[in-house]
């Protein structure tokens, strides 16, 4: 898991400031990106590029650790050895992804501690889907399969982006996500083809999660018009709608194939355009939740805050007076 474009789009005001950049350096920078070269930590880059990448990688890292919470809560309740061990390993991977991503973001100059402080103070965001609850084991399975699937669509695209450390982290993350997808699919199939109790639990979880899944890739392209420069700099590699369409192409048939239904009567593929049609997600609700007023925002941040506060003495004990912060090279 769990990166998504849903929180990456720049506000209009952030798209100013290029006039302060050296035009020759900027032209060279853009030429390098056009040639398909990777930008590395020590290289010149526009302030806006640094800022946007920091924000994007940081949000991705936050999504990994916050995302580990709704699934993590099912580790202690996973039914049977096989699931319990796999759930542990899967969630552990997500925390490992956060570790990789914080390191990648640190190469741009912001420390992990600063990023985590911004997270618990609400200054930086994470993927909005984790503000929804996972009341049953089946909800956790839906995340493992379909949220991870969505993340892979997004991350495979972003792995072809322009910033070297982020691309390398994404390559490693995608390799692990491929296993999560198999794990999630296997768990969902067992439930969807299992006893009546299991089938009901799975269908209800899918119904609960479908609206959030449809918002996972972020607002419709019609609504987010400020991504042109991010596409040109290969920060954002595919539009929200492209990712969403690809996801629906890949997973709707798989969902229906195992006898589950989807709670959107308008969902169908337009064979002429190749585009999926569906009931427009409630973007007002999406905005409300992303801005802090969702069912689990407070709980997620509270858990993270408690971890930060309870563990502060350990981090203080690890500090050595002579140590200085050094940006990792990743």
């Amino acid at each position, binding site marked *: 898991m769990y990166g998504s474009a849903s929180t990456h789009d720049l506000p209009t005001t952030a798209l100013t400031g290029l006039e302060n950049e050296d035009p020759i350096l900027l032209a060279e920078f853009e030429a390098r990106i056009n040639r398909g070269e990777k930008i590395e930590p020590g290289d010149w880059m526009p302030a806006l590029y640094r800022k946007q990448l920091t924000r994007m990688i940081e949000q991705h890292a936050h999504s990994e650790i916050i995302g580990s919470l709704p699934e993590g809560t099912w580790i202690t309740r996973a039914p049977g050895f096989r699931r319990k061990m796999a759930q*542990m390993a899967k969630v*552990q991977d997500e925390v490992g992804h956060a570790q990789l991503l914080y390191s990648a973001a640190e190469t741009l100059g912001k420390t992990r501690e600063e990023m985590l402080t911004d997270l618990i103070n609400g200054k930086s965001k994470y993927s909005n889907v984790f503000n929804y609850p996972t009341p049953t084991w089946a909800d956790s399975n839906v995340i493992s399969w379909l949220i991870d699937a969505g993340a892979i669509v997004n991350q495979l695209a972003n792995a072809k982006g322009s910033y070297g450390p982020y691309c390398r982290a994404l390559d490693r993350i995608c390799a692990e996500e491929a296993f999560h997808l198999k794990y999630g699919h296997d768990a969902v199939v067992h439930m969807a083809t299992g006893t009546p109790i299991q089938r009901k639990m799975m269908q209800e979880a899918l119904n609960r999660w479908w609206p959030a899944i449809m918002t996972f890739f972020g607002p419709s392209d019609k609504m987010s018009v400020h991504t042109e420069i991010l596409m040109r700099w290969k920060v954002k590699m595919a539009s929200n709608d492209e990712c969403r369409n690809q996801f629906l192409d890949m997973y709707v048939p798989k969902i229906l194939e195992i006898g589950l239904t989807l709670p959107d009567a308008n969902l169908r593929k337009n064979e002429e355009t190749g585009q999926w049609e569906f009931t427009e997600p409630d973007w007002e609700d999406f905005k409300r939740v992303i801005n802090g007023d969702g069912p689990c925002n407070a709980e997620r941040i509270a*858990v993270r805050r408690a971890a930060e506060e309870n563990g*502060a*003495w350990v981090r203080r004990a690890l500090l050595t007076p002579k140590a200085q912060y050094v940006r990792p090279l990743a």
Partner: protein
Amino acid sequence: MNPTLDLLYRLADDQLILGHRNSEWNGLGPILEEDIAFSSMAQDKLGHSLQLYSLLHALGEAEPDTVAFTRNAPQFHCCQLVELPIGEYDFSLTRHFLFDHAELLRFEALATSSYEPLAQVARKLRGELKYHALHANTWMKRLGTATDEAIERMQRSLDFTLPYALGIFEKTDAEAEIISSGLFVGEDELRGRWLESISKVLAQTALEVPDVLALTPVLGGRHGQHTEHLQPLLDEMAEVFRLDPTADW
């Protein structure tokens, strides 16, 4: 109880319950690296318990899932140390240090057990437990020599945890037969080795070690007497499994 079953249940239940507890550190560690480390150890311990329950199954006991997910607290043979809640990091680290030193020495000894299936498992597990002990030693030494705050916390946790740790070595009625049949060297012998082993590490810290053998051990776990914390843990563990015992999850 048959001495082999008696021994295996104690070993397996310890690993299962501590593995479960360690997994609760997901999302709560003082640094991400410790979330990850505790998860690795939790996965190992769960895997160890599965191998031991599989040995029990081969001896005619129920399937590992049934044994692990359907018994209640009085049927568990774990020591009380492993069932205590994770608390703060200083307690979890101290428990991990005291328990895994005992486990490493236990499985080193079991590698020559007269019960060959167990000896085989032990030869495999001891390699993993070596890393658990190494992890614990690294952190005990680091935090046990760091700030006053850290040393004070670690001291408090050590003082609190040691009596529970002595409960690891609680004997059952099968003890004499376990030793005479060559299944295992016995709990007294293990406790002596353990004390030597932890003392070496603690000597490299600023922590004060009491006269451990003069402490009153917390006993009962090996005989099905548990703290108030075990049954809720088991209820949580079985919450989904019990929804539909006929289901394949």
